[in-house]
Every structure is written in structure tokens, then in C-alpha cells.
């Protein structure tokens, strides 16, 4: 049954869209129902889904994808400054410009493979980051970050007769402010983008093109002797994932029209690797899951402090309460990264397939427990490997 549903694209899309669009409702009990966080889920979901097209399908580990996110943000803010506060041109431009950068960086980096490729992407990312702070200050506004101002030309808006009278204007989509509906409009825009992004990724996964990318990961030498020129395949995957990152960057800027170089730091690139790994490399839904989980716990854990911990452990006797607070406090608040690092290590060591593998094992276990079917291949299995069958 499940297998059948998962092999049908329209059904998957229907379920995915329903889950995403109803997120404000079903995330309420989890305390995650506010636009800021929901937007982050969607945007970093897009980023991770795109990254997975490169890393998950081809196995090429890039440590520089935050560069494209940053470039997307800068492009979008410039579009707000020069053209219009409408986010659609901003997002499209963000994807195009990121795509161009990805084409150049990818073309050079993909001349090498394995760890050399990783280090090339890292070197390009570090260059971009350093340049954003130094030479390109006129474009990036250096450490302050790129911001809007009332005096910006906004050519298209001016032509349409939209004048800014007081303060800095807000981003909109054809007149509807992104901040409207208490901010939920911004979430729905990001959610629709996420659904489109997921659909494209689904199509790629289940296309001959996607299967060839997986074959490159599995045995690149064989691919060459089978008659494929692997480099253009890899470059295409690289550019697509760069454009996904650009889209994510553009959306970030659409919600908060700011762009800073810190988004391009290589630890930020590490974060998207982390999301992808945590959810499940090379699986359809895993990266999205990883992004959501990391952003959710980041939000909860990093906000906790000792007094709140005392509240949480209030039900314990006084001594136990003190003890628990002492034990837990290094892992929350400022120490959230410690938790993240540990979780990450645990996943890489014990569960290289991420949460998806975990779920898969769990399904298998339950099946065996109830003696349902002899085959160990479960639904999640089909999604991750057997797209063609």
C-alpha cells in the first residue's frame, strides 16, 4: 500500500503540499507555530533539498554552498534597492546570479574529485567570504551588511508610481506585503516555493538524468566506459543545487531585506551538509526533515537558559532539579552547537543513512515483529534506492 502511494508522483505531491501548508496547524502543539520559524523551515528545506541533488545523488561533498546562499541574498537586496520591492524579480535574479557563480565555481572545482573537490569548493567559498568583507564592500557593504534605504532608486516601482513616503519600504508580492497576515503570508510564499522545489527534486530523482547521477556516485569509472561524459552531468547538478541555494538566499532576503557576509562562512556551508546527513543523504524527504529538525531544536535549545531549565525540571525534588540543570545547561543556550556537534557525530558513526535509515530500520523491525511480509525492503527503501522499479 505505502509502496504504491510513494511511487505515484501526484499522490506524493498532494501529501507533501498538505503537510507543508497545514504546518501552522500541526506545529502548534510543538510550539513552533510562528512565521519566523516556519519560514526558516521552508527556506532551509529548499537549501537542503538542493544541496542533496549534488551531494546525495553524485556524492560530491561541497563545502562551499553557503556562498551561493549569500550571493542570492545580496542579489535580492540589490533588486529591492534598484528595481522593485516586489520579491518575484528578486528571487528570479537571485537564482540566475547564483546559477552563474555556480557555473564558474563548479566548472573549475569539478575538474577534480574526492577530497580535492571538497577543498576547492572550500577555497572558493573562503575567497568569496573574504572578498565580501574587503574588495567588494561597495557591493556588499562589508561588515555592516547590505541594507535598504529610503533613497534607493527602485526604478520599476518609480515607474509604476509607487512612492515611498515614510521610512524604509517593505517587501511585497504584487502589492501584498510579505509581513501581512501577521507574517503568515511570508510563510505561505516560502511554502509554495518549497513545494515547487520539492517537485523539481522529485522529478529529477525519478528521471533518467537522476539515475545517471546516482550511477556516477556508485561507479564513475564505469560511467565513463559506458559512454557518458560525466563532467557535464556533475556540472548540471552543481548548478541546480547552486540555484536552489540562491533561491533560499533570495527568500531569506525577501523576508528580512538584509544581506551579510556571515551567511557565506564555511561553517554555514557545514550546516547544510549537516541537515542533509541528519535527514538522510540521497533520500527525497530526508534533507527537508533534517533542515526542519535542526532549525526547530536550534530555536528551542538556543533560547533556553538556566532559569527556564529550573522551570522545566520543577517537578523534580530540589536536589535532583539542581543536578539536572547542571547536567543539561552546557547543552542548551550558547551550548546548542555542542549538542549539534554531538548529534552529528552520532549520526555519522551509527546511522550514516540518517533519520530515513532509522525510520527504515524501524519499519523493518515492526514488520518482522508482526510477521508482515518476508521482504525487508520497505517503503522508505523504495524512495531512497529503487526509484525505477
Amino acid at each position, binding site marked *: 500500500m505505502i509502496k504504491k502511494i510513494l511511487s505515484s508522483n501526484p499522490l506524493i505531491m498532494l501529501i507533501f503540499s498538505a503537510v507543508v501548508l497545514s504546518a501552522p496547524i500541526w506545529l502548534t502543539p510543538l510550539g513552533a507555530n510562528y512565521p519566523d520559524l516556519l519560514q526558516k523551515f521552508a527556506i532551509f528545506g529548499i537549501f537542503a533539498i538542493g544541496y542533496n541533488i549534488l551531494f546525495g545523488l553524485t556524492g560530491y561533498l561541497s563545502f562551499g554552498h553557503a556562498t551561493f546562499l549569500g550571493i542570492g541574498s545580496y542579489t535580492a537586496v540589490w533588486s529591492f534597492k534598484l528595481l522593485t520591492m516586489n520579491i518575484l524579480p528578486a528571487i528570479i535574479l537571485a537564482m540566475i546570479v547564483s546559477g552563474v557563480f555556480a557555473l564558474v565555481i563548479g566548472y573549475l572545482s569539478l575538474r577534480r574529485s574526492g577530497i580535492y573537490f*571538497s577543498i576547492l569548493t572550500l577555497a572558493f567559498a573562503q575567497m568569496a567570504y*573574504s572578498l565580501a568583507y574587503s574588495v567588494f564592500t561597495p557591493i556588499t557593504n562589508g561588515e555592516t551588511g547590505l541594507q535598504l534605504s529610503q533613497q534607493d532608486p527602485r526604478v520599476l516601482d518609480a515607474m509604476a508610481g509607487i512612492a515611498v513616503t515614510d521610512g524604509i519600504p517593505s517587501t511585497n508580492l504584487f502589492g501584498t506585503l510579505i509581513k501581512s497576515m501577521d507574517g503568515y503570508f511570508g510563510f505561505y510564499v516560502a511554502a509554495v516555493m518549497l513545494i515547487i522545489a520539492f517537485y523539481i527534486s522529485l522529478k529529477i530523482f525519478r528521471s533518467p538524468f537522476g539515475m545517471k547521477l546516482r550511477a556516477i556516485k556508485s561507479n564513475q569509472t564505469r560511467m565513463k566506459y559506458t559512454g557518458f561524459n560525466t563532467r557535464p552531468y556533475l556540472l548540471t547538478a552543481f548548478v541546480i543545487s547552486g540555484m536552489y541555494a540562491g533561491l533560499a538566499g533570495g527568500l531569506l532576503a525577501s523576508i528580512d531585506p538584509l544581506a551579510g557576509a556571515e551567511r557565506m562562512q564555511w561553517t554555514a556551508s557545514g550546516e547544510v551538509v549537516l541537515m542533509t546527513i541528519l535527514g538522510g543523504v540521497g533520500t527525497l524527504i530526508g534533507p527537508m526533515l533534517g533542515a526542519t529538525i535542526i532549525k526547530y531544536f536550534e530555536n528551542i535549545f538556543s533560547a533556553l537558559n538556566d532559569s527556564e531549565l529550573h522551570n522545566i525540571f520543577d517537578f523534580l525534588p530540589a536536589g535532583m532539579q539542581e543536578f539536572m540543570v547542571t547536567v543539561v545547561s552546557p547543552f542548551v543556550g550558547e551550548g546548542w552547537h555542542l549538542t549539534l556537534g554531538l548529534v552529528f557525530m552520532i549520526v555519522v558513526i551509527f546511522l550514516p543513512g540518517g533519520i530515513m535509515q532509522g525510520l527504515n530500520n524501524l519499519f523493518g523491525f515492526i514488520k518482522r515483529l508482526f510477521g508482515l511480509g518476508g521482504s525487508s525492503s520497505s517503503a522508505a527503501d523504495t524512495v531512497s534506492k529503487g526509484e525505477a522499479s
Partner: protein
Amino acid sequence: MDAILIQILNGLDKGGAYALIALGLTLTFGTLGVVNFAHGALFMMGAFCAVLFNKILTISKKVKDESITFFDAYKETPYLEIWWGDTGTAIIDYSVPLSIFFAIPVMLLVGVIMERGLIKHFYKREHADQILVTFGLAIVIQEIIRHFFGANPIPTPAPEIVSGSAAVGAFFGLNENLVYPWWRLIYLAFSLSIIAAVFAFLKFTTFGMVVRAGMADRETVELLGINVQKRFTVVFGIATVVAGLAGVMYAPILPPDYHMGMDFLVLSFVVVVVGGMGSLGGAVLAGFMLGLLQSFASMNEVKAILPGIDQIIIYLVAVVILLVRPRGLMGREGVFED
């Protein structure tokens, strides 16, 4: 001419640190076949060994301040001073160089635990997995350090006697007023001697010979019946200690903070790649070369022509070397070419 001399010294100094970190990194590559993204964190731990040792030496007790007679005043006095008077003060003054003896066992222990507990299990896994797990470990180490020492850089002074500057100008027959910090000169000498020691160890001991043979051709060495695996622990320990020592002595130059490792990690990876993966000589050569290049790129005259070049020169060199000569300056064929 004066400016050039200073830049050469600066470059050699930086190069010394790069070379030391890259040496351990490339040793781990070459023998264990492991890509260690936590290597920068080991450098950082070394620097914090100096900080910690200093803290231990200055554990204090409140003592009545006799110089103030109007009221009872107290001041913090380290136990060492109370027990040994001026000798104690001198020991505290020399805490950084002395912490070398503290750092060696500590780092060795860290290295052995890390190899036995984690790295060992990743010999047979993909490089991507190695990168990822050590990246996670680097974050963990970094956050633990931050938990105990805070986020701010901790100034860790060099001994009083070498806190001044040496008249290098006079020494080289240039401008009399040209000076250079003593500690940086010491660091250069220190890094050179550690490099020499590592090379001597690998060259003149039987253990070193096996390690070098293992770097050249692991399979053959295993066929000879030599248990390479057991020696890996020691090699990893050496790499850890070298990175740690590089960090200890760097503490007076750059006040340690918890993320200094990450900054140096990326740089030292570039150094290793430029030198050639698994080439010890290449790592040293590339370390000094990149240090010098970086120094010269930060001269105002150069920056005037190529703005921002000082920020990116190292990465630029890495990209060019990787694209033109993928094996690096001195790398051998087939090392780490997936």
C-alpha cells in the same frame, strides 16, 4: 629593504605555524589515510594547554596585603609565590614555554583516545564520512573549550625577558631602529626545530622507516607482516602533539579563542594540498611558501595594485595549484585521487 625584511620574518613566522599544523595533517593522511577536520581543533587545544597551565600555576589564595596599613586589605597571591617566593614568580613568568612539558602528555593522551575511540573506526569508511565525523568532533571540542574558557580571546603573555623586540635591523646591517618581537623569532626557531625533530625521527628510527614505507605503499608493508595498524596510534599521537606544540607556542602571538582552530584548519588544508597530499616535505615547503606569500601580499605597495589580495592569496594559490598540478608541489601519483 626594511619592510621586506620584516615581511620575510613575518612570513617565516606564519609559515612555521602553517608548516607545523600541515605536517601533522599530512602525516595522518599519508599513513592512516584519514582526512582529519578536527586537526585545527588540536592546534587550538594546544594553545589552551598554555592557558590552562598558566591558570593552574596562578591558583591563588587571598593574602593580607602588608603594604596597606590603614585597613585590612587582601590580595590574590599565587600559591607558588607563597611557597617559593621569587622562584615561584619566575616559574609563572615562564608558564608558556614550561607548558610545553604539560602539553606533550596531555596532547598525546588526547591523540591516543581520539584514534582508539573514533578515528580507528573510520579507516575503511569513505573520505566524506571521515571529513564529516571529524568536522562534528571539531565542533564538539570547540564548544567544550568555550564552555570552560568563554568566548573571548585570553591574552597569554610570553616571559618578561623576551617580551621586547630584537634589533634585527642592526643585525642585518640595515636601519638601526628596525626591531622585531623576540617571541616571534623564538617561535620561528621552535617550529624549525620541531620540524627537524619530526624528520629526524622518521628518517633515523626503525619506526620512522616503517611509517615512511607505509606512506609510500601501505599494502606492501602490510604484506611484510608488519602490523601497521598498531603504529597508526603512535603516528596519530605524534601528529596531535605536533599540532598541540604549534598551538602552545602560538598563544603569546595570538591570544587563544575557541574558534582559532577552524581558521587555521582551512589554511592548513590548503597548505597540505598545495604541498601535495601525504608529502611531508611538501607540507613544510608549502607552509613557508604560503606564509611568505601572505606576508608580501599584505604589504601596502602590493595591496595598492591588487586590492584585497592579502585576504585571498592563499586560496588563489590553492585553486591554481589544484587545477594545474593536482598532486601539489611534491605529491606523488595516485595519492587520494579517489
